[in-house]
């Protein structure tokens, strides 16, 4: 394995034009990232379907409240900021991981988890507020599709945090091993992907909804 890496690096130095082809043969675990990317793409289709449902049903208020009556844009802005902050802090964790600094990686992962938890808390507050105001998922087709779409995203964030805590325990127990680095990279993709989906949510659901 080591000698292979060395010959590979030697090949690199001579500017082997077949770099990307030879590269693939060395580490079978390299396919994990591609596999995880394919999972994310299929997850993307789930969200696309829910967006389509919201796009179709989002104006059917059943004589109930409309988005402009319900949505609190400052709260959504804070929520968006939390998710964006958690994305950049996860980026910092990855940079420290690349340097092999365990403590800093763990600290930034913890900060990421806190931002994610604040995001979830604000979302749950919004949901409970809506349900108490009589605008629960059963009120209208608009609210059903709203709760399904935003709730699915919230569930993803919840599982992302569970995964984050699991990996923090793994890293603190076993260090930044190759396996843990690979897992952290998968979670990195998952976390940033959730932020991408949230861009769609705040643009299409909240901002367009309030715009009317």
């Amino acid at each position, binding site marked *: 394995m080591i000698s292979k890496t060395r010959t590979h690096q030697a090949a690199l130095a001579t500017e082997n034009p077949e770099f990307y082809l030879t590269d693939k043969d060395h580490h079978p675990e390299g396919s994990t990232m591609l596999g995880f990317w394919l999972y994310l*793409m299929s997850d993307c289709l789930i969200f696309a379907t829910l967006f389509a449902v919201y796009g179709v049903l989002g104006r059917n208020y059943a004589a109930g409240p409309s988005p402009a009556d319900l949505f609190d844009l400052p709260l959504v802005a804070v929520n968006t900021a939390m998710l964006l902050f958690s994305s950049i802090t996860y980026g910092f964790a990855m940079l420290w991981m690349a340097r092999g600094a365990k403590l800093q990686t763990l600290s930034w992962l913890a900060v990421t988890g806190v931002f994610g938890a604040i995001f979830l808390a604000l979302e749950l507050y919004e949901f409970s507020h809506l349900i108490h105001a009589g605008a629960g998922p059963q009120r209208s087709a608009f609210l059903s599709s709203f709760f399904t779409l935003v709730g699915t995203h919230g569930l993803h964030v919840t599982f992302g945090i569970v995964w984050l805590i699991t990996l923090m325990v793994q890293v603190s127990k076993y260090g930044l091993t190759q396996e843990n680095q690979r897992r952290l990279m998968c979670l990195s993709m998952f976390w940033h992907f959730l932020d991408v989906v949230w861009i*769609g949510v705040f643009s299409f659901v909240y901002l367009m909804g309030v715009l009317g």
Partner: protein
Amino acid sequence: MSSHPHAPAHHNAGDTHHGHDGGHDAAHGSFKGYMTGFVLSVILTAIPFWLVMSGAIDSKLLTAVLVMGLGAVQIVVHMIYFLHMNPRSEGGWTIMALIFTIVLVGILLAGSLWIMHHLNANMMPMSPEMMKNMP
């Protein structure tokens, strides 16, 4: 991402004898890359929120187009700076999967909205009173 399959070996070797700056390893991105992405995202988030909350533009249609357009740009920014997408990673398979997914998502969204809008438009108009008395 091009260099990532052998990145772990590189780091294990690198830890001991040189503090590497993280600047050349596309798999983990670089500090500069993350900050660029972050600043762009903040700007691209702030503008649509400001547009809608202040009502700076009278035309609702133009505001809507701007909100969706800036959202699309921000998604591209996230893809490049946070998800490190590029046409070469995994021998081009990630970008192929992404393009395929974008095509599917486009068909799904545009098709659903188009068909359901036409179904709606071809229904008999209903007054709110008729709606209330529906079974």
